[in-house]
């Protein structure tokens, strides 16, 4: 069941009429979507429905054909981020994970998270060479902050392991930790439970809720595991063939005939 959480605030992410064409193919067709503060929103739909494409548009990897993306970080001004460079969007406070894990395999778990701290730290070439007091302190802070984040996702025992040597579930959690290190107001998770066993999914369920609780951030996630979706999300968007076909609370979606027909069908009986 969705947790109760104060949701009186405005939306932090507003997607207006987002459209994306690849050649002649329309991957997303005028989709509207928003995420409110502290909200966990799920984006579901069959494979190829355009979910990851939306993520790629939000995070700046693709430049949308039409439509707009606005963000309003808590306590900050509303800002249009359509077509902005990837790293700038991350710096503005949206961080993501990837459907096919993309960790830095030959770096340790700690170093992976340290990379996430990059956009919140400053040391340049001169500072690196001179290594003055301030730089040393910054480095020290990066390490301890990264360690704390690893602790939050329960990876402290793997802190010095090379990322490629971690088990699959741990790699997924490392990706989440790395994204959190960028201090986002909105965390975008692309199929976080993919390839996880039921036990790991259960842990992920708790982790997602805990992140919201402790970090006070919003989460937008793409997920196929309906059990996870139904248990953590406040609201759900359903997509099919590039269009949004439904939205609502988990219970509304559960009852929605269009959705059942288009997508859930027998899968949802479980």
């Amino acid at each position, binding site marked *: 069941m969705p947790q109760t959480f104060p949701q009186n605030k405005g939306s932090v992410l507003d997607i207006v009429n987002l459209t994306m064409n690849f050649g002649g193919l329309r991957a997303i067709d005028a989709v509207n979507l928003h995420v409110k503060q502290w909200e966990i929103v799920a984006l579901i739909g069959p494979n190829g429905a355009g979910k990851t494409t939306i993520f790629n548009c939000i995070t700046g990897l693709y430049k949308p054909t039409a439509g707009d993306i606005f963000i309003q970080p808590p306590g900050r001004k509303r800002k249009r981020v359509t077509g902005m460079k990837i790293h700038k969007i991350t710096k503005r406070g949206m961080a*993501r994970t990837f459907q096919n894990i993309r960790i830095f395999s030959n770096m340790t778990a700690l170093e992976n998270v340290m990379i996430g701290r990059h956009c919140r730290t400053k040391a340049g070439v001169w500072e690196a060479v001179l290594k003055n007091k301030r730089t040393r302190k910054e480095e020290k802070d990066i390490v301890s902050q990264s360690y704390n984040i690893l602790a939050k996702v329960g990876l402290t025992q793997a802190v010095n392991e090379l990322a490629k040597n971690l088990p699959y579930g741990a790699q997924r959690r490392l990706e989440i930790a790395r994204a959190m290190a960028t201090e986002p107001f909105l965390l975008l998770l692309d199929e976080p439970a993919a390839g996880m066993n039921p036990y790991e999914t259960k842990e992920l369920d708790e982790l997602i809720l805990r992140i919201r609780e402790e970090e006070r951030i919003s989460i937008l996630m793409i997920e196929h595991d309906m059990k996870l979706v139904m248990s953590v999300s406040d609201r759900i968007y359903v997509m099919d063939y590039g269009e949004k076909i439904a939205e609502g609370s988990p219970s509304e979606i559960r009852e929605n005939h269009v959705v059942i027909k288009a997508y859930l069908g027998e899968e949802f009986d479980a």
Partner: protein
Amino acid sequence: MRKIKELRQSLLISVWFMFLTFPIMVIRVNTIDNIIEWRWMNMIYVGLGSFVFSFIWRYLLSKKQSGAKLLKADKPAYLLPMQRIFANPWMQMSALFFIAVFAVIFPFVFSSYQINIMTTALMYVVLGLGLNIVVGQAGLLNLGYAAFYAVGAYSYALLNYHFGIGFWTALPIGAALAALFGIILGLPVLRLRGDYLAIVTLGFGEIVRLVLENWNEFSFGPSGISNIPRPGFFGIELNFEQVSAYLYFLVIGICLLAIFVIRRLQNSRIGRAWIAMREDEVACQSMGIDMTRAKLTALALSSMWAGLVGVIFAAKTTFINPASFTFLESAMILSIIVIGGMGTILGVIVGAFLLILLPEYLRALSDYRMLAFGAAIVLMMIFRPQGIVTVSRRTYQFSDENHAPDISTK
């Protein structure tokens, strides 16, 4: 049974290579006197050589495959016996001490010929370290590194020719110009994928050389620039021997500076960003790293060293022309880091000494130098991609006590 099969296979390989090398190795035509020279002995050499080599090849390949399995089991990479000895910090310290003493007394003991060779080797150490920033750390293959070297050399030569600017003034200018060239080249090519970037840098390197060769008014064409002054020593004119020693110590100084700066960079926020960029560009950007900036920084910092060494090169030889900055020069510097060990400072140093000093002291073999480098590059890539010197990258090792970070070698 297996032995017989291998024997048969090796025989086949040897026959194949005898066939393959027949026209080039055996026949030599002299088109002027219309004589054909038949060199049958070569065929026998090729046959025997490829027969023996096929066994070595097979052995190495099987070892590599079992090595790959070992690596999967997370065993530490195989280290050379030498490296195991030097794992001991006390041995490290004493070795460093002896090297330092040797380096200091070297110019007082050896002839200026020897000093010059050593200076050249040290210059290549710096070039290798510089190229290593982009190739080994940032993972961008630069095949036109000699162009930046040329920028340094020509900036000193031309500035001196036209404006009488001295060595010490030219040194930073040459470095800055080379860095600027790095950025100019970098700006448009940043979006390119790795292998395309390699070709563009190659093209760029050739363009620089061809322009230097053809633009006579600017660069004096293929005949180059001569009478470039050697560096002065606080206004005192030095004789040839003294200049050699002077340049030697100067290059040692630059070498130490390069090692210091590059080590600092490696273990910094920027160095980490480079590694991340090498690992996965998309993820790297998504983590908020400005990749354009990271790449440009790497290119500029890397080219800078080439410019610096270029100025010294011009001052050392007192004569430069475009022939010194061909693709082979770039390939040579690349060989240094590939053979020595990509991404590691010690590897580059070992590689530079090996590649510069070996052909120098084995004069008989110096004709075969490039042939051997080419073969060595291929063999290294296949059998020892990490290079001769294997130093697993220094990683941040987190020690739990009061969250104090402790950086040590794993």
